[in-house]
């Protein structure tokens, strides 16, 4: 058996958590900045508001428990090898932050740069992959094109037999890419934000907005009205429920996206493998469970669950690509609610309401953006001007037609 040598057996190497993470304060009646949604994006934004801009009179309002949205459901793939310049810029900015995030947060986030392979199974996959690798290189991103033999060296359990129904014809490889422990990331950001004096208010749903003309003046919540100088929407899958309250239309649709895990297994899978064509992606998380996902369910859905035939199909793909997985067991499946844009790129920017900032549409791929987005969004809030990394992602692109079509790079969830 090809097992991966690890000095410490997984399971034993899980970190101890901090004794204290956050207060559970009562909401004040007014804040300079109110962030709606304590997912990764909301919490990271809070952290960088305090850290980079000294803005601390901030509340992060969460209708449920912090980090309980897509943040606790995502398969944690972090990479920056996107096709278009605009995307590479924000994701690479983010990846660089990931590389020092553990120190910044003072919290173990188990960021593991074990590399990500994106397999190619058709001649067109190959063309698209080479195109992306070449573009990445010119953008200063580590990217390689690997032959099937090289794929086998990076990940010995991948079936590179050319007899497969859709044989592996090669793969793109980003060595600096990897995974991190989603929950710890959320907690790490929350802890730092809390330390900085930012109030994270859980069990506090935003139910409406207060406006004065074209200016946003606060939010209505299940725990009373809260006045705010600026309001930032970081509500991911539920963003349109909020924007509908303002009559603001945005081009995102909410879909279920499913994921699953196996039981804990001895290390077999040293990297992250994604395959658009046969629709599966998989890594082996720190404790040893295989973490997998596939594409979104086609219909709109807020149910945090999808259809099981999607999972069955994904299992067929997994066993095709990794024959050794045959008797691994599905232990748990779940779903999140992802907000998908027509061009598979996010929407970040100012809105027609002064003081209202929008951040949504990250769809199947926003975890990796968490620090980069938080950094850039905080910049926008502080300066009322988009950070260069997010400037291209405004709503106006739908009007001009200058979409940032990342379906090729984001076609399968990650």
């Amino acid at each position, binding site marked *: 058996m090809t097992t991966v040598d690890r000095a410490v057996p997984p399971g034993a190497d899980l970190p101890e958590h901090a004794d204290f993470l956050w207060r559970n304060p009562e909401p004040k009646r007014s804040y300079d900045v109110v962030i709606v949604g304590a997912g990764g994006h909301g919490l990271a934004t809070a952290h960088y508001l305090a850290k980079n801009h000294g803005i601390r009179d901030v509340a992060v309002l969460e209708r449920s428990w912090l980090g309980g949205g897509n943040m606790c459901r995502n398969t944690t793939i972090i990479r920056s090898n996107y096709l278009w310049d605009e995307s590479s810029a924000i994701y690479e900015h983010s990846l660089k932050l990931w590389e020092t995030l553990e120190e910044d947060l003072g919290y173990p986030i188990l960021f593991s740069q074990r590399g990500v392979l994106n397999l190619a199974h058709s001649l067109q996959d190959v063309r698209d992959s080479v195109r992306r690798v070449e573009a990445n290189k010119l953008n200063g991103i580590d990217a390689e094109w690997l032959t099937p033999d090289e794929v086998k060296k990076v990940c010995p359990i991948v079936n590179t037999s050319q007899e497969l129904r859709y044989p592996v014809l090669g793969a793109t490889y980003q060595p600096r890419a990897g995974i991190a422990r989603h929950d710890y990331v959320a907690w790490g950001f929350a802890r730092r934000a809390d330390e900085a004096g930012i109030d994270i208010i859980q069990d506090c749903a935003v139910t409406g907005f207060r406006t004065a003309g074209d200016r946003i003046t606060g939010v209505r919540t299940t725990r009373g009205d809260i006045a705010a100088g600026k309001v930032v929407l970081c509500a991911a899958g*539920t963003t*349109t*429920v909020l924007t*509908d309250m303002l009559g603001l*239309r*945005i*081009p*995102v*649709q*909410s879909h279920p996206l499913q994921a699953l895990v196996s039981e804990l297994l001895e290390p077999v899978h040293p990297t992250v493998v994604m395959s658009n064509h046969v629709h599966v992606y998989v890594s082996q998380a720190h404790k040893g469970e295989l973490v997998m996902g596939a594409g979104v369910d*086609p*219909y*709109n*859905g*807020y*149910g945090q669950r999808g*259809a*099981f*035939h999607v999972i069955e199909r994904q299992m067929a793909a997994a066993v095709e690509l990794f024959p050794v997985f045959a008797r691994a067991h599905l232990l748990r499946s779940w779903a999140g609610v992802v907000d998908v844009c*027509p061009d598979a790129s996010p929407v970040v920017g100012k809105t027609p309401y002064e003081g209202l900032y929008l951040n949504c549409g990250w769809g199947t791929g926003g975890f990796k953006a968490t620090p980069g987005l938080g950094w850039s969004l905080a910049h926008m809030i502080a300066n009322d001007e988009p950070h260069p990394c997010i400037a291209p992602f405004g709503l106006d692109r*739908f*009007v*001009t*037609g200058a979409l940032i079509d990342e379906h090729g790079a984001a076609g399968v969830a990650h």
Partner: protein
Amino acid sequence: MQLITCPYCGPREEAEFHYGGQAHVPHPADPGSLSDEEWAHHLFFRDNPRGPFAERWVHALGCRRWFNAVRDTVSYRFHHIYRLDQARPETP
């Protein structure tokens, strides 16, 4: 894993259907007269409600007919399924 009642064929597995997004969004009669902004809205902006949603489906692997449905996007339950030539029923 819905069992979707095709108005023509009857109940069939979800896997036989393709989703068509929001219903009752007619193509503008004269797209040329729309501003870029209006056109962008027509192309890319759709409702995305949490709750009942009038949407389109096609029985792709059966009779190939499109139809409309009101489905709850939280419970996924179909409240109404109706033909394209029928009016949208009142929501429960």
